[in-house]
């Protein structure tokens, strides 16, 4: 089998195997923290950080970790990095850390991260694993950014805290609430399905 060019591993995460829109992984933080674009971006970056670091470590140790305890080891590795990220955010951006709340620790059980370790990092070389993790992380962040932008613009009339809607615009508060998150994500997934089908035919 001919090996794909390494850059392919990065690009696939952006759209073809986008963790949120196509693989439907890591939906809990996607929905929960995307009230504002800032939060969405922070969550994306944090998750990417954890993903890249743990992929690095897992890929490095892939021949060392015994098969029976691999899942447990992955979880410990991930949990460690999550703790680091959590403390970092709490120290430097306490505002964001507060608004993300327990969803930072919940990155541990984000099935996207564990899924990448199990499906990719534990089977591939370091470079490829890093590219894959970066791609997935970027795809995740991108999806979060779009979702949180839509919700923030409609729900609060702002984008990254800047007023961008016209003065008489009355905000759709529902977009900041759970129903708005579900409906927006539903539409995004549907749009992705639609575009993908268009591309195939």
């Amino acid at each position, binding site marked *: 089998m001919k090996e794909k060019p390494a850059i392919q591993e990065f690009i696939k995460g952006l759209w073809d195997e986008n963790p949120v829109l196509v693989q439907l992984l890591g939906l809990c933080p996607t929905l929960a923290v995307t009230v504002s674009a800032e939060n969405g971006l922070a969550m994306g970056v944090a998750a990417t950080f954890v993903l890249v670091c743990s992929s690095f470590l897992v890929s490095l140790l892939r021949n060392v970790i015994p098969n029976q305890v691999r899942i447990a080891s992955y979880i410990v590795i991930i949990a460690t990095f999550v703790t680091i990220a959590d403390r970092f955010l709490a120290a430097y951006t306490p505002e964001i850390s507060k608004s993300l709340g327990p969803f930072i620790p919940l990155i541990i059980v984000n099935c996207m991260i564990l899924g990448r370790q199990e499906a990719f990092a534990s089977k591939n070389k370091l470079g490829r694993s890093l590219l894959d993790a970066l791609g997935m992380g970027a795809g995740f962040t991108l999806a979060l950014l779009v979702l949180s932008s839509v919700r923030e613009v409609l729900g609060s009339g702002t984008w990254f805290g800047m007023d961008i809607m016209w003065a008489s615009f*009355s905000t*759709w508060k*529902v977009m900041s609430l759970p*129903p708005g998150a579900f409906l927006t994500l*539903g539409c995004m997934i*549907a749009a992705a399905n639609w575009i993908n089908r268009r591309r195939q035919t």
Partner: protein
Amino acid sequence: MTEKKNDIKETQDPAKTEASAEKQAKKEVPAEKQEKKGASAEKPKAKPKPKKNPRAKLFKSERMTIVAPAPHAKGKQSVPRIMYTVIIALLPAVAASIFFFGTRAMVTLMVAVFSAMVAEFACNKIMKTGVTIDDGSAILTGLLLAMTLPPTFPVAATALGAVIAIVFGKQVFGGLGANIFNPALIGRAFLQASFPVKITTWTLPAFASSSAYFDIATSKAVDTVSGATPLGLWKFEGIGTHLKPLLFGNIGGCIGETSALALLAGGIVLLILKYADWRIPLSYIGTVFLFSGALWLIDPSRYPDPLFMILSGGLILGAFFMATDMVTSPVTPLGTWIYGIGMGVMLVVIRLWGGLPEGVMYSILFMNGLVPLLNRWTRPKYFGEIQEESKKK
């Protein structure tokens, strides 16, 4: 009697036959074919000879008829007929609200209906299904949505609600008959969550201030027209409202919430025509009556009396026109009872202990979500099934 009927039929016939003379001719089978079958006692009538009809060969009989599976008789019901009847049944209430709230209510009603129809049409075009705005369901959704809004609700928001109702309430599920939740209430719930202040800015009827038995009006300045609903007054300010204005609609509130009498008139028409299942209003309103009545008997100073509970807010509108929406209500009789009772309990709980003064919308939406389960769990025992079980015992 029989003869007369035949006469009428025959006098009607020529017009029909002439109109479709050519069609008829094509249906005729070549005359030679019939000659071959010597058995035929009757000669073919003098009719224009048919041109070419490849299908004619298949039919050796004298004329082509429709071949279709049984039954060959049909009841008179049809989907558009049901929809338009419900719309007509709503008209007394619409008229009452226009009478009480003036042209502003009419604008809201028209905007909602028009936006719903436009949204339906756009969805039809995008999804490339046949255009379905003529089946009346979009009009009904728009109308019902408008009935749940305050008369002075912003026009743009009304339109948004109608679009949400059609798109997320109905079309994403696959159009008419596929939706799980009542589309109008989805639209309304969306608006309620989006604009919690605007949607609770009520207007008093135009001449409410002159009416002596309406307590609140006297406490407001003459030029202020906004006021609270009877439920809101009771809940947040502890002020009751007399039953008479509730009955006639001389109160603040949504467009469709006002006149209980006009709503009842339309609702009863629906029940008589069997376009609404009588079990739903009965079990819904009945549960509210019994539940709140029991509480009222326990402590009349703390809990409102049951008639107030029934006549205030959107209960009548919801019970007769929204909960009975065929698509989103159970199909089994037992399921229907549970559905109604569930809504009643939830309504009283929300009204008395919840954070909101009104819970009709939420009670219906919540029970809508349970309808698939109710349908599943209350499948009727089919004829003869019970005996089989008792035999086993």
